């Protein structure tokens, strides 16, 4: 479905075409509005992911925080959060270096939404988690290592 949509979008342009496709039931209006970045989610390495997200360069920043436990009892559910005190944050993303695909989630923050998002991710193994933040058009990063233990039996 997504592949098909992308091919169609590449070969044509303009609202008229989108309208036609929507009318034909190929895409719903909602789907056409949002733009799930397949290239970024398919990218494997950190470098390729950043490239697909259109990030040319990043600066490490103490004003970006990755929150989460130092140790996660189970890699299937790891609570992580990104917070930043930088001004005009319009986007944040969570990347997991050692996952098969680094990008876990990205968020677009309209004006009025705070740069403070929490979610839960899967981690295949112990890894650095990166928070990417776009502030005033520039990209900033912070990192934290989370150890994953898969434990024994019980519960």
């Amino acid at each position, binding site marked *: 479905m997504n592949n098909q949509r992308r091919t169609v979008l590449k070969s044509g342009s303009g609202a008229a075409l989108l309208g036609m496709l929507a009318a034909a039931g190929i895409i719903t209006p909602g789907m056409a509005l949002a733009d799930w970045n397949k290239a970024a989610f398919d990218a494997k390495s950190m470098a390729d992911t950043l490239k697909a997200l259109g990030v040319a360069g990043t600066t490490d920043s103490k004003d970006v925080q990755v929150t989460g*436990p130092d140790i996660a*009892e*189970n890699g299937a559910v790891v609570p992580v959060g990104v917070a930043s005190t930088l001004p005009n944050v319009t986007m944040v993303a969570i990347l997991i270096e050692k996952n098969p695909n680094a990008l876990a989630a990205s968020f677009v923050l309209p004006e009025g939404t705070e740069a403070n998002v929490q979610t839960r991710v899967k981690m295949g193994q112990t890894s650095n988690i990166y928070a990417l933040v776009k502030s005033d058009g520039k990209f900033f990063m912070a990192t934290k290592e989370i150890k994953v233990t898969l434990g024994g039996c019980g519960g």
Partner: protein
Amino acid sequence: MIRRLMKTLVGAAVLAAFAGGVVAQDSKVADELAKYREALADGNPADLLEVKGEGLWAEKRGPKNASLEKCDLGQGPGKLEGAYAALPKYFKDTNKVMDVESRLVHCMVTLQGFTQAEVTKQWFSRPGKESDIEALVTFIGAKSNGMKINAPATHPEEARMAKMGEYIFYRRSGPQDFSCSICHGQEGKRIRLQELGNLTTKEGAGFAMKTWPSYRVSQGAVWTMQRRLIDCMRQARWPEPAYLADSIVALETYLQKTATGTVMETPGIKR
């Protein structure tokens, strides 16, 4: 036999030496794990199932097109508050000690007209296959949240079941000659990072029983007490009992009796 014993002793010595290095880091690890569990507690996916269970309880279903609102879980028809905390219990109408799951299945059969096979076919969920029982038990359990476990097994039939449960708890069996009590009969035991509760004390049994049903993050599903105990037996390499087997109800009766007085905190969330 002697060779096997030697192997065990050497293994124990290695373990003891290894544990020395681990102990120093224990408290830090425990703190971090506590942080992890705390972060999961707010927003327990079991809450989704609780909502679903509430809907299923009131929905007219089955050949008799009836809801479960007249189901008597031991506190009178339709009375859910505190029902979970007071089970297993002896029921006159079936002349049996029943836990929440056997009683729920009984209601679905008698009130809604399902066959037992239909009801128990999906007694636990698999990816893409939801279980009504899991949802209903989560909902029923939550109706006892904040209440004290009150299953002292005073009725002679309940006392008999508790006794049987205690017997099973200590009985060594299976290819590994294992019993529940080997892992869960002493303080301060653990398997890798998992602390093992001592289920023979009120504190230990209470800590275990108050949080079920519980969302298990490793399984991505809510587990009921039946599933928990049946899987314990599998892990002990025992033959797995059938769902709703008397042996499981007996173990529950013993554990709930020991845990009586502990305040329920359900649905829980666990590794």
